[in-house]
């Protein structure tokens, strides 16, 4: 049988949402290959939320437990996943191209001696072969790539594979992992000041550029983000990150993060080519800029010309009313 292994993620003992996208992508592959989806999550004990994996199409959920697996343990995780792939004879292995997946997937692929098709935005099966689409040059071009090695190891770009309900049995099993967790030890996660939502995973991203004039004015964007009730993250252009106004992790563009939210606000951003590359796969783009000829308006679905210091507070108020 051509089974697919979906590698899920937990943080603090709770399944991360991106895991549902992984199960959805794995289900799509398994249906085309005629096999089951087995979802694997590595943890120190029970994981909250795994029952939802059945709803999104996992035939079985395997929780692999180890005292050292509460935090991400790169070496122990890689060994455990690779061993599971070998013993289960999987045809394909699916990861999220999240911070953890970008670290773990290459290790697992190298251990298995097969390539990794990373950060893919589409995956199909044609004549038994897995074929992926990957944005390159930050989305300025798309590569269609055939995986000619087995198993096919892929990582999925967050926010692209919208979770689809495909209920399956979703039975759970727990296996204890023996051996060492590894030499690289994660001591903990220091929370970022801006909250837990990352620009790469947020359904709504509100980015600001030099038009904000000074770092303190990003408060306007943070207020707007809050009005969306925890669904929005604040991003930034390269210019303001290089100027030290915002942390590097918030940068959207070719030398920052490539994002695909359902709604993207570009506020006071002119639209340099390297920024456009990073956000052009957003489903809907709104631009607010005082210069009606700014390049950002060429990619925006909706543009508002004018003073952002008037427009943004009005927008925040209106969104706040809408949400309440």
């Amino acid at each position, binding site marked *: 049988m051509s089974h697919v292994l979906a590698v899920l993620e937990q943080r603090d003992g709770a399944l991360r949402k991106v895991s549902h996208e992984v199960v959805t992508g794995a289900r799509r592959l398994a249906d085309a290959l005629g096999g089951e989806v087995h979802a694997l999550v590595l943890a120190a004990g029970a994981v909250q939320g795994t029952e939802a994996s059945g709803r999104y199409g996992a035939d079985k959920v395997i929780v692999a437990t180890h005292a050292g697996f509460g935090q991400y343990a790169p070496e122990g995780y890689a060994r455990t996943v690779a061993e599971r792939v070998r013993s289960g004879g999987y045809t394909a292995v699916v990861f999220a191209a999240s911070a953890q997946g970008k670290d773990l997937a290459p290790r697992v692929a190298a251990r298995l001696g097969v390539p990794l098709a990373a950060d893919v935005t589409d995956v199909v099966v044609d004549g038994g072969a897995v074929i992926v689409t990957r944005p390159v*040059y930050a989305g300025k071009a798309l590569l269609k790539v055939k995986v000619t090695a087995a198993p096919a190891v892929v990582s999925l770009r967050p926010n692209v594979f919208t979770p689809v309900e495909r209920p399956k049995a979703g039975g759970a099993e727990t296996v204890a992992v023996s051996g060492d967790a590894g030499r690289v030890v994660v001591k903990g996660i220091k929370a970022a000041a801006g909250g837990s939502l990352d620009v790469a995973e947020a359904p709504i991203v509100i980015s600001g550029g030099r038009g904000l004039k000074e770092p303190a004015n990003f408060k306007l964007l943070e207020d707007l983000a809050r009005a969306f009730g925890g669904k929005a993250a604040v991003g930034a252009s390269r210019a303001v990150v290089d100027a030290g106004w915002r942390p590097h992790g918030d940068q959207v563009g070719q030398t920052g993060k490539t994002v695909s939210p359902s709604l993207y606000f570009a506020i006071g951003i002119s639209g340099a080519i390297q920024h456009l590359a990073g956000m052009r796969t957003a489903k809907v783009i709104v631009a607010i800029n005082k210069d009606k000829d700014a390049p950002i308006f060429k990619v925006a679905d909706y543009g508002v010309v004018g003073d952002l210091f008037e427009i943004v507070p009005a927008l925040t108020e209106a969104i706040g009313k809408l949400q309440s």
Partner: protein
Amino acid sequence: MKIAVCIKRVADSETRVKIAADGKSLDEAGVKFILNPYDEFAVEEALQRKEKAGGGEVVVLACGSQASQETIRTTLAMGADRGVLLETAAVPADGLAVARALAAELKDGGFDLILFGKMAIDDYNHQVGPMVAELLELPCVTCVAHLNLVDGKGTAEREVEGGMEEVEFPLPAVLTTEKGLNEPRYPALKGIMAAKKKPLEVKPAALGAAGLEILAMTPPPDRKDGRIVGEGAAAVPALLQLLREEAKVL
């Protein structure tokens, strides 16, 4: 400290991508090539670590075409001691093939640290560093934004969603660098002159078979034309109505 830095020659981030006649690759005509921006942080970190240790060697490796020699020279001008080019006409799409070639070269080098940029801004593969670590069975931390090394042990912070993961690891190790780790230096004229005389070895890359086959490169789908909703705060109600009723995202 003996440090290796693996770098890549990439198209500049301002490049307008035109697809070559083969329909599978970038048309390089008129394209400016640069040292991959994330690799600059790796080179800078290596130079600072060597300076701090008061001795050692910084070796820069690249896997790429003849033209990558120029990119290696840039790092020698920054202050690296010598370069090695693992030459191949084209860098394969399969990062594991590249990792194998680099690992074979690094294997017996006796390096305390092997540094990479966290990813290349051309192929976005984000994988060669940790793959080399696995092939060499070395500890590895990716996307390092802060780094401390004391007595053969390291602590690092790596960016994850909503925070910084605090990581401990022993040396020797493979690290990949994130923007913000340091401020890369510009090559000074003196460095540029000195770089011309520094050793740069060129040998064929032992890539082996690749397991990814590029079928096509295409431009991204065009976004449909947008429109200006209006001017100033007065346009906000119309914008909200469009987002709710037309785009259906609210």
